[in-house]
């Protein structure tokens, strides 16, 4: 074994310890936040969570939801993800776990999927959060954009948000708090208890404040 230099009589420290620690950061007490890994940018979310020291299982089957305190439904294609949730029996399982107190964050396609109703007739959303959502609300890909947002619970510094074929929130119901709006007042982020929705993609930037906020919600400290 390769060891670092050490004074006589001291126990040498294997260099590999440091390397192993960097590859697999220790889990933080308070558990696991999984990422729905059917399709989309689930790895981008997982990388951020790992950097925050949170254990992040990829979820492709219903039984993989059982141990989770929180679940992120990532960006991707909402139609595709809805079909795959039905194919793999995840629709009812996610709803049941959410009722039991599992926190759920939908980013972009995920926000569409956790909504109670959509402007469009498909896909069929999970109906978890008391919001009405319009898909592809800003147009096609050439209309995708970036913008700086003020997000109250994240403190004063603006959050740089990336919107890709993004949805928007048309109406909010009881118990829903709007967290961020575009300059024209369009709501683009909201929270209802342990449910969080963003029309944009915090996982595509190196600002981890939204992920930390969700981890805190999942742990029940915010």
């Amino acid at each position, binding site marked *: 074994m390769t060891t670092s230099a050490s004074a006589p009589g001291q126990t040498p420290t294997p260099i590999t310890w440091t390397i192993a620690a960097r590859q697999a950061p220790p889990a933080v007490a308070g558990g696991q936040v999984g990422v729905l890994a059917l*399709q989309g940018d689930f790895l981008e979310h997982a990388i951020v969570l790992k950097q925050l020291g949170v254990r992040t299982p990829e979820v492709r089957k219903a039984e993989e939801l059982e141990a989770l305190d929180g679940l992120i439904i990532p960006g*991707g294609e909402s*139609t595709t993800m809805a079909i795959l949730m039905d194919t793999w029996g995840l629709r009812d399982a996610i709803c049941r776990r959410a009722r039991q107190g599992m926190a759920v964050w939908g980013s*972009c396609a995920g926000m569409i999927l956790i909504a109670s109703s959509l402007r469009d007739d498909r896909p069929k959303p999970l109906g978890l959060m008391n919001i009405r959502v319009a898909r592809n609300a800003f147009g096609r890909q050439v209309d995708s*954009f970036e913008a700086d947002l003020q997000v109250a619970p994240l403190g004063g510094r603006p959050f740089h948000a990336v919107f890709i*074929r993004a949805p928007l929130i048309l109406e909010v119901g009881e118990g829903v708090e709007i967290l961020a709006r575009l*300059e024209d007042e369009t709501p683009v982020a909201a929270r209802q208890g342990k449910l969080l929705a963003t029309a944009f993609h915090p996982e*595509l930037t190196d600002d981890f404040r939204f992920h930390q906020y969700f981890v805190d919600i999942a742990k029940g400290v915010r």
Partner: protein
Amino acid sequence: MALGTNGTSTGTWQVKVGLAQMLKGGVIMDVVTAEHAKIAEDAGACAVMALERVPSDIRAAGGVARMSDPDIILRIMDTVTIPVMAKCRIGHFAEARVLEALGVDYIDESEVLTPADEANHVWKHDFKVPFVCGCRELGEAVRRIAEGAAMIRTKGEAGTGNVVEAVRHMRAVNSGVRKVQGMSNEELMAEAKTIGAPLDILLEVKRLGRLPVVNFAAGGLATPSDAALMMHLGCDGVFVGSGIFKSSDPDLRARAIVKAVTHYQDWGIVAEASKGLGEPMPGLDVRTLKPEQLLAVRGW
């Protein structure tokens, strides 16, 4: 880049690369009619490629293959809500401008069509719409990224139903990335010269240990196992061209390939998805093709 409403900026590198990131873990299917597009969407495709002919029919037809009739592309855009891609000829920036004006979500500057410029590819940074381009090895991938491609795919050998070239190209990219990772910066400058790739992007490849944009497999995939094979070789998702709508049961095969991509790490599911799919598309031995029939050598 341009200013949009709400004090925002559109057409940025981040939103171009970002859309490809949303397609990861998915299957992009070639379709030639609105009915095909609907079948693909219902089967779980994450995007469709709108075409007049699938690559195997382009091969059979011969002659000059051009951008599709806008009518076909628009009908497909009206039918599905998932992103719609379309192909322009290599170097044909006017076809690309037409596709951008139609509002397609991604342009594939593709060797499957007859090249319009044998010396130059499109300068893709000038467009608001993002581009995907084919590659055979790391240098080619990095050249396309430098021109503004926000997504890369292997070229494979389209329309053959033979995955061998896609495997060759994916392995070549992987091996190129590993080589770069082991190099010091001064060696990297020498490598940049050797493989004809810009140094700044090679430095990014070294830092990330992968291409700095999403990389899909394409060109010859025909079965769920082909798709799982490519996912294990490290691609982010797959294109299936002729493989679906030239098979005996396109709907069943499309669903099976989607299953195999989602669960590529679970061989039981890939096995289950492979059962009873009927006849795959007829395959071609790439070694029997004449040099002028090879598509992957188009572009550089």
